[in-house]
C-alpha cells in the first residue's frame, strides 16, 4: 500500500542529492536548482521534501561542518541510500520505456 512512486519535485530533489554528493544540503540544493534550471524554489519546500524522502528511506543524513556564511551553523548533509539509487534507476528506465513508445513524429513534420 506504500507509495512506491515519486512526485516530480521529489524526484528532482532525489536526483540533486545524488548529483551533489558530499555537498548535498538544503541551501545548496535550492541554489543549484535555481542556477541550473532557472526555477524559483522555496527553501522550506526543499527541506520538507528532503525530510519526506528520508522518511521513505531513499536518503539518509548526518550533520556536517559549519561555515562563516552560515553564521557557524552546521549543515545537514544528505546521501542517497541504495533504495534511493534503485528508485532513481527504476524511474529512469520507465522514462526510457515510455520514450520509446512515443512515435517519432519529428520526421513526418519535415514534408
Amino acid at each position, binding site marked *: 500500500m506504500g507509495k512506491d512512486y515519486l512526485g516530480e519535485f521529489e524526484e528532482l530533489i532525489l536526483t540533486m542529492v545524488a548529483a551533489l554528493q558530499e555537498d548535498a*544540503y*538544503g*541551501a545548496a540544493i*535550492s*541554489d543549484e536548482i535555481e542556477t541550473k534550471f532557472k526555477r524559483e524554489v*522555496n*527553501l*522550506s*519546500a526543499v*527541506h*520538507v521534501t528532503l*525530510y*519526506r524522502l528520508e522518511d521513505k528511506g531513499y536518503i539518509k543524513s548526518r*550533520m556536517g561542518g*559549519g*561555515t*562563516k*556564511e*552560515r*553564521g*557557524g*551553523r*552546521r*549543515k*545537514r548533509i544528505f546521501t542517497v541510500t541504495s533504495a534511493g539509487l534503485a528508485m532513481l534507476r527504476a524511474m529512469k528506465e520507465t522514462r526510457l520505456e515510455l520514450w520509446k513508445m512515443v512515435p517519432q513524429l519529428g520526421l513526418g513534420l519535415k514534408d
Partner: protein
Amino acid sequence: MNEASKLKQDQNYKYPFSLCFLKWFCPDHLHEEIEGDLIQKFHADVKRFGERGAKERLAWNVLRFFRPGIFLRNRLSLQIIQIYMIRNYIKIAFRNFVRQKSYTLLNVAGLSLGMAASLLILQYVKYERSFDTFHSRAKDIYRIQYNGWQNGRLNFESAVAVPAVGPALKNNFPEVEAYTRFLPTKGMITYERPGEEPVTFREEKAQYADTSLFGVFDFKLIHGNTKQCLKGTNKVIISQSTARKYFDDEDPIGKSLKVNGNELLLEVTGVFQDVPENSHIKFDFLISYETINALTKNESENSWGWYDFYSFVLLKPGTDVKDLQAKWDEYLLKERGEDWRKTNRKQEFILRPLTDIHLYSNLLYETSPRELRDGDSVYALSIIAMFILIIASVNYVNLATARSFNRANEVGVRKVVGALRTQLVNQFLTESFILNVLAAVLAVVIVRIAWPYFSELTGWNIPISFLLQKEFWLLVLVLFLGGAVLSGFYPAIILSSFKPVAVLKGKIIRSASGNFLRKSLVVFQFVASVFLISGSLIVYQQLSFMKNKDLGISLEQTLVLKRPGIVDSLYEGNYEAFKTEVLRIPGVQGIAASSTIPGEENYWTSGISRLTGGPEGTNIVTTAAIDHDFIPQYDVQIVAGRNFDSRFPNDKENILINRALAAELEFKSPEDAVGQLVKHWGDTVKIVGVVEDFHQMSLRAKVIPAVFHLIPASQFYSIKVETENYYAVLQALEKPWAEFFAGNPIDYFFLDQFFSRQYERDDRFGQVFTLFTGLALFIAALGLLGLASFMTLQRTREIGIRKVLGSSVSGIILLLSKGFMQPVLIAIVIACPLAWFLMNQWLQSFPYRTNINLWIFGISGLLVLIIAFVSVSSQAMKAAMTKPAETLKYE
C-alpha cells in the same frame, strides 16, 4: 585560530527578529541546519538585494517554514495509523449520520435546543449575580439594615437607617474604614439658559450623598474632583446623560440648577459616568450632604430617630463581620439603652453584604424594589437549565443504546477483523463529539438570534456585549465537552462490549440492565417535565390569586395627576379652583387629593400612642394625608365611626386609622377605637373613624398599620373617570391645569396600570418559567419519539406475525404504547408529591397565598400522558398499518 575567532564573532551577530520566530516553532533537532541555510541565503541575498531586501526575504522565508511538515515533525506522537484511524472514525460517523437522517436531526435538535436554553439561562443568572460586583472592594462594603422593635415585637425591617449610625461606626471601630450615606429625594429641576426658555424636568433619581462616596464605591467621575465636588452646601454632581439632557454640548461645570422653583439653587461641580445597569442603587443627581445638613440643622447628621438614609460602610479587608456586629450591638446597648427603655423600643442595625442586596434583600424601602430579584427564583432557573441539559443528554444516551441492536453486527464484524476495543470506543466517542459540535454551533446561533426577543420577553435588559464575553465561549466549550463526554461514554462502553461470536451467531443482545437504565432515564425526564408543568401552573395560580384578590380599594377608571412641582403661596386656593373646573368636565366623577396612592410605597412614618391604656411606648405607623373625598372615591369601607366631613370644621385635629392599627393599639374592636384620644406628632388627636384594611402595595406585602390626616391638596390628584374615553378627559384637563399651575408640566398615569406594575417581575418570571417548561417538555417528547420509533422498528417482524395471526391495529398500538406508558405513569406518581412539597415551600414566601389545587396535578399528569401517547402511538400506528407481507417477505 583567526578563523575560529571570526566564527565566534559571527555567531554573536544579531540576526533579524524573524529568526526568533523560527526558534519558537521549529523542532530543536531541525533548527540548527534550517537556520544555517536561512543565514546562508540571507548573506547571498544581501549581495543581490541589499540589507533591507534581504531582511524582508528572510522574514518571508521564515514564514514559509511555518508549515505542518516542519512544526509538527516528531512533535505530536500521532503516528500515521492513528491519523488514518481518526479520518476513518470521522468518515464512518458521517456515513452513519447520513444513513439515519431523522435520528441525527432528532439528536442535533434536542441537544442544540438544550444547550441554547441553558446558555441563555446561565448567562442570565450570571448577570443577576453580577449586581454591585463592579466595585473593586464590593466584598468589603456593607449596608446597614434597620430593625425596629416595639414592645418586644419586631415592627419593621428597613433598608434605610438613621443617619447617626455611619459616623458612630466609623468613630468607634477601627475596622470601619469609611461610611457613606444616601438620602433619596425628588423634585422639579430647572436650568435657565440665558436668553432661552428654561428647561424643567421632574427628577425621581436624586440623592443627597456624602463626599466619602467615591472612597467606598467605584462610581466614575468624568469631570470634577472626587474629594472636592461634594464639599460645601448647594453643590451637585450629575450623570453624563443628565448633563446632555440639560446642557446639550455646553460645559455643565459651574452652571446652576434650580430645585422646585426657588427652593434650592445648586451649582454643578462634577459629572459622573451613568450608573451601570447592574448597580442596585441608581441616581442621576448627587447633592452635597452639607446641603441637607444645613436645611435640617444637622438633624440629618446626628438623628437616631429619622430613618430615611441608605447607609454603607467600608470595612478593612479580612474583618470578621460577626465579631464586629457583636461589638457594635454591645456599643448600641450601652449608648442607646436608656432611650430605648423610655419608649419601650429597641433598634437593631445589622451589617448586610452589599452584593447580597440584589438577590436576597427584600426589606421595606428598598431603593428600586421592582429591580430586585428573588435569589431563590434565579437559583430555580439554573436548576431548570440543568434539567433541560440533562433531558437532552438523556435523549442521546437512550437513542444510542437503543440503536445498539442495529449496530451490533457492525461491532461484531469490526472485532473479528481485528478492531481493538479502544478503537471502537473512539469510534462512538467521535460520533458523539461530532454531533455535539454541530449542536454547539447551532446553539450559539440560536442564542445569538434569540437574544433580543428573549430580552424583550423577560424584560432583562442585558446588553449583547455582556452575553458575548470570554466566559460565554468558555461556557459553550464546557457544555460541549461535558455533553460530548457524558452522552458519548456510556453508549461507547456498551456498544464496544459486545461479544463478536454471540453477535454474529445472531443472538439478540438485549441486556435487562440496559433496558432498566433506559426506562429509569425516561422516568427521570418525565419527573422533571411533570414537575415543571405543575410548577408553572402553581406560579400562575398564585399570580392570578394576587391580581384578583379584593384589595379593599377600587383602582379602576382612575387617572392620577402628580401635583405641580413649582407652586406659590396661592397653591391651596388654586387647587380648589382647579378641582371645581375639573368636576365640570363631562365624564369626571370625582377628584381626590392624597399624599400617597395605592402602588406607591409610603415612606412617611410617625409614632403614635394611646393616652390611656394600650401598649407601652410608641407605635411606628405609616402616615397619609387625604382630603374629604379620598375614602368615598376609592371605595374604602368604613368599619366604625365616620369619614372626615366638611361639616366638622376641626376635623384637621382628628384622625382616621385602619383596622390593623386598631388591633395594634389593642382596642377590643374598631368601635371601641372611635372617639379615643391618641398622641400623634406631639399633639393629642381624636380617632373619628376606623377604615377597613386595604392594600397599599401588592399582595406580596402585608397590610401595615396606618394613620390618615385631613390635609387638602397634597401630592397626588386622583380623578375618577366615568367613561372609557380617557383621552377626551385628558385633553379637557390641560386647560385648567395651564391656567392654575402655569409653568408646570402635566404628569399623569393610570392607576390600575401603575399598580399592576408591581407584578411585572412575577409575570415575567412566570413567562420565563413557562417558556423553559415548554422547551423541556418538547425535548423530552423528542426523545420519546425517537425511542419509540426504534423500538417499533425492532419489533417489525413480531408485528407482522401478530397481524397475520389476526391482531387488530388498535391492539398493536396498545401493545406498543404500553411499554412506554409505564415509565411515564411512574414519573407522574413520583413528581406530584415532589412538586406539591417544593411549591408549597415557595408559596410560604407570600403573606397572602392560594391553596394548591389538586386538579393542577391532574392536568399536568394528563398533559404529559397525552404528549407521551401521541409521540409513541404515531410510531406504533405506522408500524401497525404496515402490511405484514412487506415486513415478512425477507424471511
